[in-house]
């Protein structure tokens, strides 16, 4: 049985159907990249998986099944147990999801104690240990910092550490590297790949960077105007695809030693 099955899903904001008839299947330990231009609905799809559609968005048709259980019928209590524990999400700027006026440590402790009945001290240590595992130097200093005191790369690692605390089976990443420098991006990409190798985490990564998407993915989904234009495994999409839009996207990626305009 697949870990996650998105079948014939329509997502609407009010009367506008923004995502139409989408099907994505994700196996355990698989990495799937969703690529497309801005406004193509790629973020909407993964937000729907976690029940986090903004501004009254709703899944109006189809079903999202996670481990044999429909995610569309969960109540708040069931969602709280699932989110951040079985399914985690990393956002574009993890610093923005944290309260700017609270220490990272306090945010982290609150998160851990939502899922586990342990003392604040134990939770603090668990958080610091997790930060260390994500190769953040001096985890205790990070725990005692405010989000704005960290660099973009550090904040993103904190976000990944938080997301990975309970070794979720599914990690959703929404443009996790687009706000970062290329060198930091390479570090974060590598770290996410290691998560899959170490914990068998399945990952859905949404990105407009086709380089990152193809490097990470087993499977690539191309979206356009709210519909899935084409999907398939990486080598098929790169070499055999005959879809004009997929080809256009791939050709537009600047390539080292590739075409020059001057």
């Amino acid at each position, binding site marked *: 049985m697949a870990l996650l099955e998105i079948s014939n899903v329509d997502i609407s904001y009010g009367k506008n159907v923004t995502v139409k008839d989408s099907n994505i299947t994700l196996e355990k330990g698989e990495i799937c990249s969703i690529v497309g231009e*801005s406004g193509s609905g790629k973020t909407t799809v993964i937000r729907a998986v976690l029940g986090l559609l903004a501004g009254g968005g709703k899944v109006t048709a189809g079903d999202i099944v996670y481990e044999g259980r429909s995610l569309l019928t969960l109540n708040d209590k069931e969602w709280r147990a699932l989110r951040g524990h079985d399914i985690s999400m990393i956002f574009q700027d993890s610093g923005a999801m944290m309260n700017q006026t609270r220490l990272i440590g306090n945010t982290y402790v609150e998160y851990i104690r939502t899922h586990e009945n342990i003392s604040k001290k134990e939770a603090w240590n668990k958080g610091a240990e997790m930060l260390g595992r994500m190769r953040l130097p001096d985890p205790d200093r990070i725990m005692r910092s405010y989000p704005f005191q960290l660099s973009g790369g550090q904040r993103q690692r904190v976000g990944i550490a938080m997301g990975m605390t309970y070794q979720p089976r599914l990690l959703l990443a929404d443009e996790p590297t687009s706000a970062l420098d290329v060198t930091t991006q390479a570090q974060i990409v590598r770290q996410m790949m290691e998560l899959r190798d170490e914990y068998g985490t399945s990952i859905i990564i949404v990105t407009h960077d086709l*380089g990152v998407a193809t490097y990470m993915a087993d499977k690539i989904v191309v979206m356009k105007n709210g519909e899935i234009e084409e999907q398939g495994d990486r080598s098929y999409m790169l070499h055999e695809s005959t879809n004009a839009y997929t080809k256009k996207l791939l050709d537009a990626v600047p390539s080292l030693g590739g075409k020059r305009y*001057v």
Partner: protein
Amino acid sequence: MFDEKDLVLEAKHVTRRFPASGGRQLLACNDVNLKMYKGKTLGLVGESGCGKSTFMRFLVGLDTPSEGEIWFRDMDITKLKGRAAWENHQHVQMVFQDPSTSFNPKMKIRDIVCEPLLNFGRIKASQKDGKARELLEMVELPGDFADRFPHNMSGGQRQRVAIARALALEPEIIVMDEATSALDVSVQDTVIQLITKLQREKNISIGFICHNLGLIQSFAHQIAVMYLGNIVEVMPGEGMAEKCCHPYSKALLDAVFDVKMDFSRKIEPIKGEAPSPLDVPVGCPFQDRCPHCMAACRETRPVLRELEPGHEVACHLFENGGAI
């Protein structure tokens, strides 16, 4: 490689320090020497905070360096004041990163692209319609867009308008600060094609700031790599991937994800992050992240040395002309 008689602009020993709290100083640009040639593109690459934007802002007159000179049209433009500085603006124009915030949202596209021309008295108000149409068609937009507001257009269209506005005065130099990084790849591709086409037609020099080596090497004639306020390597754009030799340039190259790359290759990103420009280490700025760090790197700062015409590198490894 480049003909010295085509030299348009030359920066000599440009240094910029910003005062910081506690009496400290932030060194944004340290002894930068760069040349720009007629009709050629200079790409400036580096991580955020390395001082690449600070340097380009000097060219447009948005800031002045603490030390050093920038020679353009037989004048040191860092010393220009008042009317002379204003007159100089028509020769150097800028395209900003985010086209949605670099326009006045209350102005129509017609007024946006014609404003520089009216400022410098090049056209009369009655000629605006025709001129706006001509400028928009130059950047391959329908002339009817003159009646639109910036928010009625997509990001790529807005960036084209920004290019049209920068070109309106027919400047000699255009500075583009990450002009395509807010755009989708497919749009980015068409904007780069447009820029290079216009460059060929009008023989403009471009200073392009970018952090993506894969993109910059596709259209720059010379590429300067900057790290922590220092230029560490200057090289020709063509064949850059094979020629580059500074460990930092190589690290930047390794960090490029490419749809044509070998996917089985494990990426080996350089460790850590750039140190704060508030306390730049003695010696080589890259010492703490460099895999080839030697004793000399901790003591003296390497200076740019020519390896071959048009290719200079600041690294102790190449002191005696040797290679890694």
